[in-house]
């Protein structure tokens, strides 16, 4: 088949309309969410004192941070699914969750504390946190990669890393409702480490599966 003939067949296929990357990504994440939620209720469950915890601003801050991460990463990943897109000018969105954490840490510093700083940082759930967030991330990461495969990212590893942040942000949102460690110091340490791990897995997987 020469190039003129190929062009003829492409023009004949012009009526085919693909769904947008955003729609595909949303569909894939919605399909994977029940798997992660099932894992959550089978292994962890919501903490028993959740009704009182909700009145603690540091409990609520955890959700603001994880949801801000997921939302920012979704926006950036959709941007990067266009071939001519660059990360420059968009990366600051990913600083929003970090900024919320810094604000939370400063807020906590100004309040009288019952527990010393290191105790709050180390917490009592760090091991669970480090395994539960990556585990619940995996189905979501697969979904995010499937959704983004529909796009055309110029740098597949970067797009994969951002897909990792999407899934880690969503999985951490689930985990936050189980974990009794509410100190922003704990979140900044362990949630960040877990997110970094998932981000690295996403970059590795993305460099293979997001090439088009």
């Amino acid at each position: 088949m020469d190039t003129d003939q190929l062009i003829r067949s492409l023009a004949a296929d012009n009526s085919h309309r693909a769904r947008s990357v955003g729609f595909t990504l949303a569909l894939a994440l919605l399909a994977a969410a029940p798997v992660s939620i099932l894992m959550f209720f089978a292994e962890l469950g919501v903490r028993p004192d959740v009704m009182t915890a909700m009145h603690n601003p540091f409990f609520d801050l955890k959700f603001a941070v994880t949801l801000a991460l997921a939302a920012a990463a979704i926006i950036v990943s959709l941007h990067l699914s266009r071939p001519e897109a660059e990360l420059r000018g968009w990366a600051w969105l990913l600083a929003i969750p970090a900024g919320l954490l810094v604000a939370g840490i400063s807020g906590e510093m100004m309040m009288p504390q019952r527990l010393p700083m290191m105790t709050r940082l180390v917490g009592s759930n760090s091991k669970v946190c480090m395994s539960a967030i990556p585990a619940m991330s995996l189905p979501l990461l697969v979904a995010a990669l499937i959704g983004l495969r529909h796009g055309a990212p110029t740098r597949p590893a970067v797009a994969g890393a951002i897909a990792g942040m999407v899934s880690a942000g969503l999985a951490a949102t689930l985990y936050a409702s189980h974990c009794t460690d509410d100190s922003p110091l704990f979140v900044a340490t362990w949630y960040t480490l877990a997110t970094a791990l998932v981000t690295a897995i996403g970059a590795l997987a993305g460099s293979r599966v997001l090439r088009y």
Partner: protein
Amino acid sequence: MVGARVREREDEWTGLMRSAMSGDDTAYHRLLKAVTPVLRATARRGLARAGQPVDQSEDIVQDILLAVHLKRHTWDANAAFAPWLFAIARNKLIDALRRRGRRVFVSIDDFAETLADQPAAETASPTEVAAQLNSLPARQRDVLQSIAVESASIKDTAAKLAMSEGAVRVALHRGLASLTAKLRES
């Protein structure tokens, strides 16, 4: 002078692509014909710079055209078409050179500044796409053969192969998608 001509050309491309996306098949055909010499000239230059035989340029051109087609939903109709096209073309050219074991710096400007004044003729050697055509499922191959090689319309192809027009359209799109997948594997 050159800048103005390039800009004029790129505005025309954007207009054609907008028409194509709103369902104008002829505009789409014209657009693909118009960008091909620019893609070909740049691919040849890239191969030459990497010390590779330039007669492989047609493989790269066809690879780019298939990617443009299958990823055109990622083009934002409010943006210019050329930067999007050249980003895909650059990506595919770098990929092709890397597969041949060469690392070559390719910039978007290589495409943007290419004027296809003396268009290089298409090389006659059969391309990878042509070779992969035979490995497609029979139905997809027959439909592609009819539309591409025998330049039959979708309607005529449907009558000839005793299929519905919808089935022809599906087979055509699947055929193009699986050709692309096979090129990536090979």
